């Protein structure tokens, strides 16, 4: 076995970042989203690359386009649903083409480990008519990133690089190389870069010709690779599905491994199909390769054997092909589930407790606070997409009027508000619904693992940066009622929520306290339960804190988790929670 001398074990997303470095990329703008976040975080560690977090994916992609136009290789990354936000610039960038190379990562989440839907972003590549590469491990993630820039410049097009959770968040071995930086001059070209109807009409046939040229490339591209084995079974596959197929079949089947997923080759597929007895397509999510093969008039099996929903694994494929799978055992006891929960000391907890206590209807948004829908709080009744809480509240109140205005709220995080909540807020101010919006400001983008945003005052490298003042922004939009509360203070929270719901005017409540996991946040010592005082009434159990449980009929605090936020002690009717400082 070789000794892996110059090689590194690298996360798929980090390998993309390495590819960006080696490809000489100079500009990166992204909005975080699992499973794409680490690409930009890792790239920001290279001093040679300018990196930033943008307020949303559309702004990020437009900024990357500007950098490409100016003549430097540029990049942006997002999760699958983020590409919906950035679809507007993408579809027309397909017409303008690029100056220096422009590559866009989109990371799908089959299995929905951390997403609200399971959409297949290959549809975007087809609809926007841009090429899409799809790596199957970290080594390919690095190699395909560099290839994407060559294709982008050669074919004058943005290029999509599609990741998925299992490629993005798996580490495998890569061999890093050197960085080279190409430079392109900016030249004024109105016919190419100003998409008026007259100009766009001339660009569309160029896009169609480009697709034809790319199909010709796909026929010969080394990334579309045939691995002949036994010819009884032939499998066309890509991405992580390729790895599962090889795990199950080894050389006992022939494989056409597609590294470029749009446009798909024609002759290469026909030739491969002619060499094998039975042809299969193994692809996660929608039958995109399969439908292409069927359109070519080739008999093929795919989604008749394998599911559209959820991610694949080697056992799932072995099962579908009637192969033996390993035996496994279980114990008889019911194993209680362990769903994700708000952390001990999470500032969102006190706010949701207050909203539930006031019997509010809560329209939620995307972030850690979506966990406010889980028992025992069960406060949130709707979550759709980034920013939807405010738009939905406006519509809800417009049709239900007074009946809902005094009990319905939108809850949205600081980062999500900057992403796409502001426009919803403008609509409330403009079209005048009596709506109450709660911005839960924990001073960070929490769920994706602590990224800075325009309200935090720091940039991606943690250096001081511009800072949007939320109170001033809301007032400037026309809100006269803007209140700030500390969600650790339940009495204050309750008072402000009651007042703002009662008011006959739209209002914003900013529930402000930094995420308890932030390094600079100083914690109080853990609380202690005085078991002589505790009457076992379970009042403290209503907030669903993972640090508080019942033991032998009394409340019990897990000292490894408790950060002394005191929310539980405010619910205790007998004062049984004691600070360990007081004891000493």
């Amino acid at each position, binding site marked *: *076995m*070789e000794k*892996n001398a110059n*090689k590194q*074990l690298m996360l798929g997303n980090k390998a993309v970042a390495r590819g960006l470095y080696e490809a000489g990329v100079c500009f990166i703008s992204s909005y975080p989203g*699992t*499973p794409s*976040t680490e690409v930009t975080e890792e790239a920001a560690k290279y001093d040679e690359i300018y990196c930033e977090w943008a307020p949303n994916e559309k702004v990020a992609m437009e900024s990357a386009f500007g950098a490409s136009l100016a003549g430097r290789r540029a990049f942006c990354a997002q999760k699958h649903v983020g590409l919906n936000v950035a679809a507007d610039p993408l579809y027309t960038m397909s017409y303008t083409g690029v100056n220096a190379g422009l590559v866009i990562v989109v990371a799908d989440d089959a299995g929905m*480990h*951390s997403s609200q839907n399971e959409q297949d972003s290959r549809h975007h590549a087809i609809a926007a008519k841009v090429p899409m590469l799809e790596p199957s*491990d970290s080594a390919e993630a690095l190699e395909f990133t560099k290839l994407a820039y060559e294709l982008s410049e050669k074919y004058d097009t943005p290029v999509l690089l599609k990741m998925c959770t*299992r490629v993005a*968040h*798996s*580490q*495998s*071995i890569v061999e890093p190389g050197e960085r080279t930086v190409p430079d392109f001059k900016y030249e004024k070209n109105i016919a190419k870069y100003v998409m008026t109807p007259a100009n766009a009409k001339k660009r569309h046939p160029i896009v169609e010709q480009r697709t034809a040229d790319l199909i010709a490339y796909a026929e010969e591209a080394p990334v579309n690779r045939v691995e002949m084995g036994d010819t009884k079974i032939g499998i066309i596959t890509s991405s*992580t599905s390729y*790895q*599962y197929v*090889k*795990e199950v079949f080894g050389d006992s089947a022939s494989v056409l491994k597609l590294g470029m997923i749009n446009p798909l080759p024609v002759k290469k597929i026909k030739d491969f199909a002619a060499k094998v007895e039975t042809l299969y397509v193994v692809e996660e999510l929608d039958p995109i390769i399969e439908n292409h093969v069927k359109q070519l008039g080739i008999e093929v099996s795919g989604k008749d054997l394998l599911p559209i929903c959820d991610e694949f*694994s*080697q*056992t799932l494929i072995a099962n579908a092909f009637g192969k033996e*799978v*390993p*035996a*496994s*055992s*279980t*114990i*008889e*006891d*019911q*194993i*209680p*589930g*362990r*769903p*994700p*929960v*708000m*952390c001990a000391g999470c500032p969102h907890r006190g706010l949701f407790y207050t909203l539930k206590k006031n019997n509010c209807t809560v329209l939620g948004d995307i972030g*850690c606070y979506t*966990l406010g829908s*889980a*028992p*025992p709080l069960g406060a949130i009744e709707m979550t759709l997409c980034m920013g939807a809480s405010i738009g939905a509240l406006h519509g809800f109140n417009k049709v239900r009027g007074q009946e809902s205005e005094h009990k319905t709220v939108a809850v949205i995080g600081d980062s999500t508000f900057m992403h796409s909540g502001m426009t919803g807020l403008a609509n409330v101010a403009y079209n005048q619904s009596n709506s109450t919006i709660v911005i839960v400001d924990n001073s960070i983008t929490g*769920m*994706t*693992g602590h990224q800075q945003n325009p309200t935090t005052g720091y940039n991606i490298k943690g250096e001081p940066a511009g800072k949007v003042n939320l109170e001033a922004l809301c007032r400037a939009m026309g809100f006269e009622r803007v209140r700030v509360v500390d969600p650790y203070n339940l009495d204050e929270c309750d008072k402000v929520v009651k007042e703002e719901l009662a008011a006959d005017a739209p209002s914003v409540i900013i529930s402000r306290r930094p995420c308890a996991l932030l390094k600079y946040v100083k914690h109080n010592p853990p609380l202690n339960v005085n078991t002589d005082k505790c009457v076992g009434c379970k009042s403290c*159990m209503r907030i*669903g804190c*993972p640090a*508080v*449980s*019942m033991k032998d009929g009394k409340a019990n605090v*897990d000292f*490894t988790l408790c950060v002394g936020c005191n929310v539980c002690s405010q619910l205790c009717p007998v004062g049984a929670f004691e600070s360990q400082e007081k004891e000493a």
Partner: protein
Amino acid sequence: METKNIMIVGVGGQGSLLASKLLGHLLMSQGYDVKVSEVHGMSQRGGSVVTYVRYGEKVYSPVIDKGEADYIVSFELLEAARWLPFLKKDGQIVTNTQQIDPMPVITGVAEYPEDLVNKLKATGAKVDALDCLSLAEEAGSSKAVNIVLLGRLSHYFDLPEEAWMQSLEANVPAKFLDMNKKAFELGKNFAN
């Protein structure tokens, strides 16, 4: 050689990412092809988390499926039971005996099963259970549970102690190295 499979399971926030990083480093230094697969994002918020480590001559899939794990390294007892179906016949479980109540137990809609170590053994699984939290505290930090577990796991591997120490040095901050070395030894030499 046949690909070997190690699963690291626990509760979000317990430090399983460092354990998988260290194992990946170690196995690569021994010349193996290695894949490590982890999940980020929502499930990390106190949910059940799992990391897959696979090594051998050529590793394809990054994930481990039911009945495939040679080892399950568990940070928490209920999680060992949850992932038991992934253990290979004759596979080895190395588990912390610490119990962390999940939310359905905290809210009283479910019960934490009793006597899990013996129930796991009754299925024919080989179970090595130890109180890693106490051993970690003995070493100097309750956060060293992950290193205590790795120390115990090393007991089942035919690799030189030197290699484990090098991976430890490469992956933990210098100021915590001595404490982590102690945690490793306490786990390794634990007498059942």
